[in-house]
């Protein structure tokens, strides 16, 4: 946040990548891959989310403290899903 970000060209490049990835994920959804459909969709979504976080949200230039604050909730999200699954999957 201290210095200037990636610059406007960089932002537009990120935006273009996001648009392309959106098109890709829609296109893949018309192809039947079974279980792989969700894996591919989530992978693409995660790449998009990372692009937004790293460049638009400037996480790339943030301190380790901010990284910690940004990633901690993801861990707890996994925890609540995993803990609940440990019940519902084996009931």
């Amino acid at each position, binding site marked *: 946040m201290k210095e200037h970000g990636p610059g406007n060209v960089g932002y537009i490049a990120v935006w273009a990548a996001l648009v392309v990835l959106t098109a890709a994920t829609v296109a893949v959804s018309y192809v039947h891959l079974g279980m792989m459909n969700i894996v591919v969709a989530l992978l693409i979504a995660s790449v998009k989310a990372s692009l937004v976080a790293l460049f638009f949200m400037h996480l790339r230039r943030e301190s380790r*403290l901010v990284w910690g604050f940004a990633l*901690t*909730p993801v861990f*707890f999200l996994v*925890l*609540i899903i995993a*803990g*609940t699954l*440990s*019940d*519902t*999957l*084996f*009931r």
Partner: protein
Amino acid sequence: MRETMWSGERPLNGNASPRGYLEEKGFWAWAYTLDHKRIGVMYLYTTLFFFLVGGVFALLIRIKLMFPGQHIFTNQTYNVMFTMHGALMIFLFIIPAIPSGLGNFFIPLQIGARDVAFPRLNLMSYWVFVAGIVVILFSLVRPMDTGWTFYTPYSARTSADVTVLSFGIFLIGMSSILTGLNFLVTIHKLRAPGMTWHRMPLFIWSMYATSIIQVLATPVVGITFLLLAMERVLGVGFFDPAKGGDPILFQHFFWFYSHPVVYVMILPAMGIISEVIPVFSRKPIFGYKAIAYSSVAIALFGFFVWGHHMFVTGMSGTAAIIFSLLTYSVAIPTAIKVFNWLATMYRGSITFESPMLYALTFIFLFVVGGLTGMYLGALGADIHVHDTYFIVAHFHYTMVGGTVMGLLAGLHFWFPKMTGRMLGEKMARPAWLLMFIGFNVTFFTQFILGFEGMPRRYAEYPAQYQALNIVSTVGSWVLATGVLIMFANFVRGLFRGAPAPPNPWKALSLDWQTGSPPPTENFREIPTVTDWPYGYAGRQT
């Protein structure tokens, strides 16, 4: 901050006005204040008021339970009363009292800051809290009878106003989140020069851990109550088996918040105990780092054990075994704290002023509460005593014996700092003694009742349990008498107490190095910290 720095009656950063931050008067000077100390005081008044209201409900419950059949109140009234007792005590008293009240007041003082990071957010958080209370009062039109846990499917169907109450608690949760967020940032960014993490008072460490829980767990209960309300309003079916939903899922969500939140209740109290014990033992705290890190460990481990509230719900055996095992992990950091407090006192020059009496009571009662918690974490034992008075006794030993005793230790400890007046020890001690006796008579009997199989929550019970119930009810009267004397002492101290010197307990943390009461800006100059706040001289030779 070595012990030689005690400045007797002369504070490091003195007062311009003897009334300090209390100088400005009038309703708006409080309602619009951005001063963390005033906001803290407003929280304290609000939460202590609901402590008394919740206490009245408790007394009524106990009176009803003197008789096995349907006496005095109808069973429906009883259901409402124990729900209100639980909901008010949990959401309006025990969760916010220490963090939002004492935490607000003392975090900036102890880290040598002028205020919290976001004073306006802090004020907003208080008024959101009040808005939540107003909404909760509205729900009394059709009062709640679900117990404070709101379990589905009953809560989705009862004619009581669950929707409104859910919304009220959503607001209370929001306030809690904002407070936690504010404290996290404050502790990270506003420590005085020289105050490294390992020079922070242990109360700050415990509040840091508490804030982590508030921030990460509270949103989950927010969405849970929102979904519960939507279930009633829009017919959403996540928790409704008739629609393919899963009522146990509600309990998972609920306890993902509500188990960690018991550490929101207990951790700040543990922080207070860590402050009080070295001051009244005149010894450096033993195992500073162990106590500090164990706070964070408790916060973290607390997220992994929520399933132990659900052993008898029909949860999978796999989950039950995992959660049972994980539950024991919380015992480790908790025990670390207790042993370190004991080691701090060992060969100290202990004096028994009222804060220390409450701190010692905390250790004693909390160990009973904690160890009985170990029984409950064990699958087999839990199935035997689940939903009996054993559980009621267990959590009252942790919540009242733990959190409330910690809060009272803190209130007696910091009363001179907050008000500028001393509390009379003559009334404080009998009040403490009555509470100690009353509490144990009330709740120890409930351990026995629970072991004998008396189920909790029901309005009626088999006549064989009556004798012990009468004992328990009489105990509640003794307890209430102690509480009343204590409050009378607070009021007396507020108006008649002798003027307090800046540092009556000769404590070393920064909060005591400024005036009593502190000036609005806390410190004339921001102090530079060169040492930890526990360098007491040890045994006087």
